[in-house]
Each structure stands twice: as structure tokens, then as C-alpha cells.
């Protein structure tokens, strides 16, 4: 969180650059079955974010050293396509995508009933086709829908969303400018049915009151996004 520059992310009437008020979520749309050759898949557009998640498996886990005798392992990969950002990204792994893959796997392993599939692996592929801010949240959310679409048993779906702070004002669901020029970012992974948390990160600067406000925004946004996830899984637009 830099806090540098003089980009005005929110005007005197409390309207943000994309026209939202401080407690609104960007438009969300989810579609399932977008990777026909996969066992389950979902595409999520969230503001300008465009994310495709595909699930393969459960399948034999190899190399054998990654097998677990009592459960399945989740093999999660988060990746940004070279044309997904303003400046082209060179293909290949980097430290950022490794970390996001790791925390995403751990969030999803908290809800998938992995003990039903000992010694196997479930592949979860998250591809960011277009990025706006909050791609890790969109990735986790899309992956949850893809897992459900593949029929993998789970206790709940993870809904992930990030709120934060710009110009000392707490705002829900950060957009690109707010992410770049704002003062705090609080991404969370929420189980909407119980209100429990499986993913949490934060960077920046928040007072105790601001932290609570951002937390509450995330909880409210999770319900909005969860409704769209359920709608997509129940047969989409029909």
C-alpha cells in the first residue's frame, strides 16, 4: 500500500471512480462448464476481472511422494495470462503466484472432504484472463464453484472478497485504483453458511474501528457473491 500520488479515488459525495458507493460490490457474473474437457469449471467476471477455474480429478496422485495415506491432496495453480494486465507478464512461475497458489490450496483444503479420497489428488487450475484487483479473491471464489460443479464433496463453498481503505475511508471490494493508491487491503475467505474464515491476509494500515468496518463489509459482500455462485450452479440464466 503506497498511499502515494494524488489520484482521487472517492469524491466529496462519496462516489468512487467506478460509480459505486463505499459499501457496494462490483458487478459479478458466474458461468459454469466453460472448460468442456474438465470435470468441473467456472468463469467469473467481477468488475474487469475475468477468471477461469477448472477442476480435474480426483485422480491418481503422482509422483508418489505427494500422496497422503488418509486423504486427497489439492494441487492448486494460480496463474496470470500474459495479456491479463496493462504491461505484459512473462509466462512462468513467480514468487507471487506461488504464494497465492499455496494460500488458495490451504483455504480450499479446509472445506473439501479430502478424507474421502485417500492417496489421490484433485487438480485445481486458476487462470486470470483479465485482471483488475482482487484476482486472488476471484480465483478462490471461481475455484469453489468449479469444485462444486465437478461434484467434489465440500462442507461449504469459500467466498473470497477484499475490502480496504482509501483517503482514510473504508470501502468495500477494492477496484484497481483503490488497490494501487489506497492505504489498506483486507482479503478474506468466508464460509457464508457459518460465517467462519478459511483465508485471511492483510497489508496496509487500519485502526481497530476501520478494521472492524472492513471485516463487516467483507461479510456482507460474501452474501451477495454467494447468491450469484448458487444461481450459476443451479442452472444459470434460465
Amino acid at each position, binding site marked *: 500500500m503506497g498511499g502515494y500520488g494524488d489520484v482521487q479515488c472517492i469524491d466529496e459525495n462519496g462516489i468512487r471512480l467506478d460509480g459505486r458507493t463505499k459499501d457496494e460490490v462490483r458487478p459479478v457474473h458466474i458461468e459454469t462448464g466453460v*472448460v*468442456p474437457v474438465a470435470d468441473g469449471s467456472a468463469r467469473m467476471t467481477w468488475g474487469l476481472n475475468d477468471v477461469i477455474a*477448472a477442476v480435474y480429478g480426483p485422480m491418481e496422485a503422482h509422483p508418489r511422494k505427494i500422496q497422503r495415506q488418509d486423504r486427497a491432496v489439492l494441487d492448486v*495453480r494460480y496463474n496470470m*495470462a*500474459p*495479456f491479463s494486465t496493462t504491461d*505484459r507478464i512473462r509466462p512462468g512461475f513467480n514468487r507471487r503466484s506461488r504464494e497465492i497458489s499455496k494460500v488458495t490450496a490451504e483455504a480450499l483444503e479446509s472445506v473439501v472432504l479430502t478424507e474421502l479420497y485417500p492417496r489421490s489428488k484433485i*487438480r485445481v487450475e486458476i487462470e486470470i*484472463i483479465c485482471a483488475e484487483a482482487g484476482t486472488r479473491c476471484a480465483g478462490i471464489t471461481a475455484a469453489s464453484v468449479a469444485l462444486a460443479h465437478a461434484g467434489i464433496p465440500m462442507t461449504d463453498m469459500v467466498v473470497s472478497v477484499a475490502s480496504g481503505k482509501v483517503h482514510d475511508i473504508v470501502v468495500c471490494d477494492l477496484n484497481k485504483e483503490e488497490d494501487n493508491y489506497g492505504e489498506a487491503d483486507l482479503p478474506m475467505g468466508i464460509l457464508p453458511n457459518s460465517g467462519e474464515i478459511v483465508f485471511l491476509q492483510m497489508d496496509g494500515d487500519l485502526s481497530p474501528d476501520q478494521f472492524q468496518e472492513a471485516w463487516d463489509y467483507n461479510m456482507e459482500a460474501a452474501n451477495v457473491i454467494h447468491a450469484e455462485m448458487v444461481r450459476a450452479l443451479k442452472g444459470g440464466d434460465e
Partner: protein
Amino acid sequence: MAIPLVPKLLRAHLAELAAEDQRHDGRGRFAGRDVELELDCLPRAEGSARVRMGDTIVFAGVKFQIMTPYPDRPNQGGLMCSAEVRPVAGRNWEPGPPSPESIELGRVVDRGIRESGCINTEDLCLIPGEKAWQVILDLFAVSDDGNLFDAFALAGIAALKSATVPGERFGVGEDRPLGVAKTPVMCSYHKVGGRFVYDADKREELGGDERIHITLGDDDHVHSLQKGLKGIFTAAEFAEIMDEARSRCAELRDLIDEKLEGE
């Protein structure tokens, strides 16, 4: 790509169908799957396209960078084309550095576009010897149900033809269309059950033999050829598919022009 075991049963089944001049999905020998082409679908790319052929789905995105011209061509910019097939596209595609299969894909598509001369690299020069545009075409597979070659080539040329040079963002003049003079199009034929078929799907690829990729330009000139995988073919077989390729490439070229006009 991990090479899956090819069951003898699949090969035998495809051979039986071929003997009756049939295909497992009911298509004729030279009939392609339905083609969907969508332009400008990636807001962060300067040009983009999405192609769907049956259950094969790919994206192409064009990005620009400023480069120093090569010393032997001081008044020319550059074109770079790379193909990535990540494990999202199918259960046999593995993570890691680019596989030989995906490198071949990128290079064959690159040759067809480059050698057609559709992009005037001298137009891309900003200051001779110092500054020029590098055009980067990234091909990205989302779902591989066979014939990624044709899908990539179609998405690639469509993305280039709809691309805008981002002069303003880089502070080097105004935004302008890239200007792609020609429309090279690729058609691929796969030998399945002893005879060539057009637009093979994944099952036909797995149970087939060699493949041939043909890229033709507007005037039916040949711009790239590639024979892939193990197998032997005759001059007569090649003449037959070359004939087919001429009419099919023209159809696909019309599809691209139609979409660009609709912009």
C-alpha cells in the same frame, strides 16, 4: 504433454469407421466443427480474440512493448508469437517449462503469420536504430479437444487484425490500428484410420498417425507447412488435402472479415 496410452481398441474403432468413410462424431472427412469467433474480449489486451471449435477453446491477446531494433535491421520493429498450453486445458497437459508440443504450436503459427508478410515491420519503427514497437502475440488454450493449431492460428490473426498500437500510453504519438495487410489462415489434416481428415478432435488425435498443417495467404500462396508425428504420406494424399485447404481457408478468411466489419 504426457503421452497417454493409446488403446488398441480406439485405433481399431477409428479404422473400422474409416473403412466405411465415417467419423466417430458423424462428420464428413473434410467437415470442420462449428467455429465461433469473438473479437475484443480481453479489455487489458490491445487486440484480442476467442475461438471455439467444438470443445476446443482458445484466447489470443496482443500486447506491445518498446524495443531496441536489431543491429542488422535498424529500421524495423519485431513480432513475437508464443503459445502456452497450461494444465487448465486438459488432463494430459502438465505444469512446468513449455513442452516441445506447445513450442511447436507457437512456432508453426508464428511462421504462417510472419512469412505471409501481413505485418510491415518497417511501420513499427519509431526512431531508426533506437526505438521500435515489438508486437507480442500470446496464444492461450483454455480447453483442448484437438486441433489447437487451427484454433490458435485463427484467434492469432483475428487478434492482430483488431489490434490498436497504444501510442498514447507509451507517449510516442497517437493510438492507431496495427494495420495487418493480409489474412493467413491455417488448415490442419490428421491421418486417422489410414486417410486424412480435417479438424481432428482429441480422440482422433490420440488414435491417429501423422498430421499436416498448411497456412495459405489471401492469394492462395503457401506460407507455412509442417508435418508432425510419425507417419508416411504420398504426393497424391498431399495434393488432395492441399486442394481442400484452399476452399476451407477461404471460408475461414470470410469469417474473419465478416467479424471485423461488424466491429
